[in-house]
C-alpha cells in the first residue's frame, strides 16, 4: 500500500539556519500521527512542507505517492507551477494555530469558499455540504456569524469544517489548540478526536500530550530539527527509548 506520507531525509533551511535536519518517517493511510517536541524543533515547519507552504531543500517528500512541490524533468527537479501546486494542496487540508478564518466571510462562507472557488461547486450544493459539516463540528445555528463574533474554539471548529469541505485525503493540524483559552481546548480536541475515529489520515502537531497519547496511533518526538524517536503512542509515552524523549516528557510531567 502506498504510504499517505513518506519522508526520506527531508532537509529545510531558513537562510543559514537549518530547521529540518534530515527527517525520515512514514504515515500509513488511516493513521493518526502525532508530532510533539519543544517549540522551534521544526515540527510545524515539517507540517507546512507537506502542503508546500514551505519548500523542501533536499530529500524526498511524497504525499499520496506524489512528490511534493517539484516535478522530475530531464534529470532535474522543477518547481511546480501555480496550477499544479493548487491541485496538490487540494488533497491535504490544514488547520492553523491561529485559525486564519477568512475575516470577511461568515462561518458558512468560510466553508463554502474552497469548494466554490477551487472546485467550481454550485452555491446550493456547497452550502448544503457546508451546513452538514458545521453541524458535524457542533456549530449549527452559527452559520451567519463572522469570525470576530465567534469564540476561539468555535473559530477553530469552523476552520476544521473548512479543511474538511475539500474532502482531503490527509488532514494537517498545526498546534490547533495552542492559541485557545484553556477552557476552550476540549471542544476542539473532541472535534478532532471524532474525526480520528472516522478513520481519516491525520498529522497532528500538538503540545497536548494527553491528547496525543489517547488519540494518535503513532507519535514522533522532534528536537532541534531531528526526529528523535517515533513509536506507537503507548510505547513513546509509556517506555520512551531515547533519553532526550524521556527528558522532554519528564519536564512536562512535573
Amino acid at each position: 500500500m502506498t504510504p499517505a506520507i513518506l519522508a526520506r531525509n527531508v532537509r529545510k533551511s531558513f537562510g543559514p539556519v537549518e530547521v529540518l535536519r534530515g527527517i525520515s518517517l512514514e504515515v500509513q493511510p488511516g493513521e493518526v500521527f502525532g508530532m510533539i517536541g519543544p517549540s522551534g524543533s521544526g515540527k510545524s515547519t515539517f507540517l507546512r512542507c507537506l502542503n508546500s507552504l514551505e519548500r523542501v531543500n533536499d530529500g524526498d517528500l511524497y504525499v499520496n505517492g506524489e512528490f511534493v512541490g517539484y516535478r522530475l524533468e530531464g534529470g532535474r527537479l522543477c518547481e511546480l507551477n501555480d496550477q499544479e501546486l493548487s491541485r496538490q494542496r487540494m488533497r491535504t487540508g490544514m488547520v492553523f494555530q491561529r485559525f486564519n478564518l477568512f475575516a470577511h466571510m461568515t462561518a458558512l462562507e468560510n466553508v463554502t469558499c474552497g469548494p466554490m472557488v477551487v472546485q467550481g461547486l454550485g452555491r446550493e450544493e456547497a452550502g448544503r455540504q457546508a451546513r452538514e459539516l458545521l453541524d458535524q463540528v457542533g456549530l449549527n445555528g452559527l452559520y451567519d456569524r463572522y469570525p470576530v463574533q465567534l469564540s476561539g474554539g468555535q473559530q477553530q471548529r469552523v476552520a476544521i469544517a473548512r479543511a474538511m469541505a475539500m474532502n482531503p485525503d490527509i488532514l494537517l493540524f498545526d498546534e490547533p489548540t495552542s492559541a485557545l483559552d484553556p477552557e476552550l481546548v476540549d471542544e476542539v480536541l473532541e472535534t478532532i478526536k471524532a474525526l480520528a475515529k472516522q478513520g481519516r489520515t491525520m498529522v497532528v502537531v500538538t503540545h497536548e500530550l494527553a491528547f496525543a497519547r489517547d488519540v494518535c496511533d503513532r507519535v514522533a518526538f522532534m528536537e532541534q530539527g531531528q526526529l528523535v524517536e517515533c513509536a506507537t503512542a503507548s510505547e513513546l509515552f509509556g517506555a520512551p527509548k531515547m533519553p532526550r524523549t524521556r527528558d522532554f516528557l519528564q519536564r512536562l510531567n512535573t
Partner: protein
Amino acid sequence: MSIAERALPSMAGVPRTGLKHPARWIAGIVCLVLLALLVRAFALGQIEWSFVGQFLTSKAILYGFGNTLLMTVLAMALGIALGLIAALMRLSDNPVANAVAGGYIWFFRGTPVYLQLLLWFNLALIFPAVGIPGLWEARTVDVMTPFWAALLGLGVCQGAYTAEVIRAGILSVDSGQIEAAKAVGMRRRQVMRHVVLPQTLRVITPPIGNEVIGMLKHTSIAAVISYNEVMHTASMIYFVNNRVIEMLIVCSIYYLATVTILSFLQSLLEKHFGRSLSRSSRPVGAEEGAGA
C-alpha cells in the same frame, strides 16, 4: 457612630456631578462671535447676492459642473483601474512587472499634474500621429481634445497615487489569510480575488474617498487646457461681467455640496465593508482577542 464611620463617612445617595468645563464655554462663544463677524463681512462686502442666485442655476454653470462631475468619475475610474494593475505589478515577484510599475509610479508622482496635463495636451509635438499601424491612424492634434487630455492627464496621474493606496491595503491583509487560502488549494489569482482584495476594501475606503474628493477639485486644473469644467466656465463668465467673488461663491456652493454627499457615501461604504468586523452579535462569553 463608630470611629470608622466618622472618619470615612458613607457617600451613598450623595448626588454626583461631572467636571465643569468653563474653557469650553468661552471657546464656543469666541467661535460664534468670529463666525458672526465673518458672516457680517460677507453680507456687507461688495457681493451682489442676486448674481449668486442667478448664476447658481444658470445653464452654463450647470453644464460646467456636469463636466466636472463627469471628469471626476471617469478620471477616478481610470485611476483606480491603473492603480490596481500597478499595485499588483508592484507586489508580483516578476522583476519586469515590478520595475515597470515602479517607473510609472515614480514618473507620475514625480511631476506636477499641471505639467502632465500640458504634456498630454501637447502630445502632438512628440507623437504627430497616433494609431495602430495598418488599421487606424489619426493626427494627434485631432485626437487630443481638451476632454481626452484632461482624462488621461488626471486619470494616469491618479493611478500612480491609487497604486500606493491599494498596495498598502494589500499589505495590510494578514499573511495567515493567504496561507489559509493556499491551503484549500486556491491559485494565486483566486487568493487575490476572493481573499485578499475583498479585505483591502475596508482599509482603502477612507484614503480612496480622500482621493475622490481631491479629484473633484483637481479637475479644475484642467481649465489650463480649456476643458469646460465649472471653474473654467465661471472664469469665462467673470471675465465678461467682472463678478469674480460671486462666481467663486457659486462654484464653492457646488463643490461643498458635492463633497458633503461624497463624505456621506463614504461613511455608508465604510459601514458596509466593516460589517464583518462588528462584534455586535458576539455570543456572550466568547473570549476577548481570539479573532485578532
